[in-house]
């Protein structure tokens, strides 16, 4: 173990249950809920609350299973910013939107209602859907597929979903889509080793305004800095690259992180604590979770600022011998140090990042 690291990741809870490989985990941004999806075609929901005997702790419990009706693996799961809707993307080429059923008006106990129903089906991709994501305002959804396309959907009133654009800029399988946290900028990552960025031309259609090249392997995962001025990507080439916004519609390579020995399937960028750009957590086929603290040099001129990173925590064999497929920081205020992972063992694990020393001279001031 790397004893000199300032933080450690403590296993908080193990939530087994999927009957097959678990691909992705997603924290609900507004409610104490967590969703995971699996090759077993289901989504499992977990809830958490303060432990009644020890309010400094959270206790997690299984809530319900959504039998999605997808005919193949559910590869991706994402919450709307409101926390009310959940999206699933499946190898059966479809994506679906789920909402909790309204409690019956004269029902016995509305709090007991945990039925989730499909309120919309997003059909059109030719083959496996790999990723689904809601925009920062929740009014747009993006999906991507092995058919090389990225689709943008508009969320209309009464749970109507309309495809407003199809972008065919990648030359291969598209692995991941991710929206800028506050602006309508979409990023996609592909088996063709590139990242593409898209915006809406108000007079025309959505279009690709930038291609970020540099990775020399499939790009698996994308995540925006919480502040929106950086984008990070993880790849088969065993690196994480951070791209800086140098102008309104210009992005450039800024920094590289190395610390994995096999494909890096997932990254997440949390707000962290203290006066820096936050924490990037990464994981993948080597079964390791790494946490890096990202900082910017003092000058605030974004075009000249230099990024620095340091590994602050690391845990090996996070799910035993299994590949870890997904990692996500809890987005809710006060829970910034919580991390969720899913793996080929079908389980979800919750981790807590805590300081290794009682008084650390490295703590931010």
């Amino acid at each position: 173990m790397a004893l000199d690291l300032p933080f450690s990741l403590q296993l908080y809870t193990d939530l087994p249950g999927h009957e097959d490989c678990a691909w992705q985990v997603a924290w609900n941004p507004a409610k104490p809920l967590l969703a995971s999806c699996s090759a077993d075609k289901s989504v499992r929901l977990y809830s958490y609350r303060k432990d009644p005997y020890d309010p400094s702790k959270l206790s997690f419990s299984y809530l319900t299973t959504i039998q999605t009706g997808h005919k193949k693996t559910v590869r991706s799961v994402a919450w709307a910013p409101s926390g009310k809707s959940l999206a699933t993307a499946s190898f059966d080429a479809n994506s679906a939107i789920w909402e909790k059923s309204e409690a019956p008006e004269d029902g016995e106990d509305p709090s007991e209602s945990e039925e989730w129903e499909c309120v919309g089906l997003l059909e059109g991709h030719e083959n496996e859907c790999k990723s689904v994501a809601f925009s920062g305002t929740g009014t747009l959804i993006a999906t991507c597929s092995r058919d090389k396309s990225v689709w943008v959907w508009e969320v209309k009133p009464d749970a109507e979903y309309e495809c407003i654009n199809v972008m065919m800029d990648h030359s291969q399988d598209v692995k991941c889509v991710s929206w800028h946290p506050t602006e309508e900028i979409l990023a996609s990552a592909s088996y063709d080793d590139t990242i593409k960025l898209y915006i809406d031309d108000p007079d025309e259609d959505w279009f690709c305004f930038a291609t970020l090249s540099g990775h020399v392997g499939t790009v698996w995962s994308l995540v925006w800095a919480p502040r929106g001025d950086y984008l990070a990507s993880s790849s088969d080439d065993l690196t994480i690259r951070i791209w800086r916004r140098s102008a309104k519609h210009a992005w450039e390579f800024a920094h590289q992180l190395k610390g994995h020995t096999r494909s890096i399937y997932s990254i997440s960028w949390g707000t962290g604590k203290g006066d820096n750009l936050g924490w990037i957590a990464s994981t993948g086929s080597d079964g390791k979770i790494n946490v890096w603290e990202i900082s910017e040099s003092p000058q605030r001129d974004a075009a000249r600022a230099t990024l620095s990173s340091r590994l602050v925590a690391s845990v090996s064999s996070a799910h035993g011998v299994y590949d870890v497929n997904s990692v996500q920081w809890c987005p809710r205020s006060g829970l910034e140090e919580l991390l969720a992972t899913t793996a080929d063992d079908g389980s979800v694990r919750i981790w807590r990042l805590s300081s290794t020393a009682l008084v650390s001279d490295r703590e931010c001031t």
Partner: protein
Amino acid sequence: MNAQIFNANPTIYVSQKSSRKSRFEAGQSLWVDDDDDDDEERSSDADVEPIDQDEIFELIRSISDPEHPNSLEELRVVSAEQIEVGDNHIVVEFTPTVPHCGMSTLIGLCIRVRLLRSLPPRFKVDIRVQPGSHQSELAVNKQLNDKERVAAALENPSIVETIEKCIETAESSRRV
């Protein structure tokens, strides 16, 4: 499936007598073991004695070629020398009979499925074509080692049917 024959007249070699048996049994789920107790038992057994390349070769030598009535060993598509065993890490290289072989991805998938079903989950397996033996070497390698593409292929009934046919010979030869 494409009906085109990529190598109509392959060279066939005599296969060696099986000298030993693999400890690993077939029939497990592709990703998660259904029977945890059984799995733990096998894992701890395997911890005592590390596996070697002959043992991996034993698992894959009798896989049938998708377009010929021969085993991968008889066609010299696989050999013990092309297998590298590291610390919970196995690299299998195979040699397509012709450089334009359109069956290469399928052969690689058969090897992958055979090993996924036979080995304890602690092994990471990389499968590649022998360097220089295929005109689309990088593309084949990339596809065979993309876990998402492999998982999706294994949900495709017609691909699975072909794979089952090819590895049936390997699984049944083991039971003798």
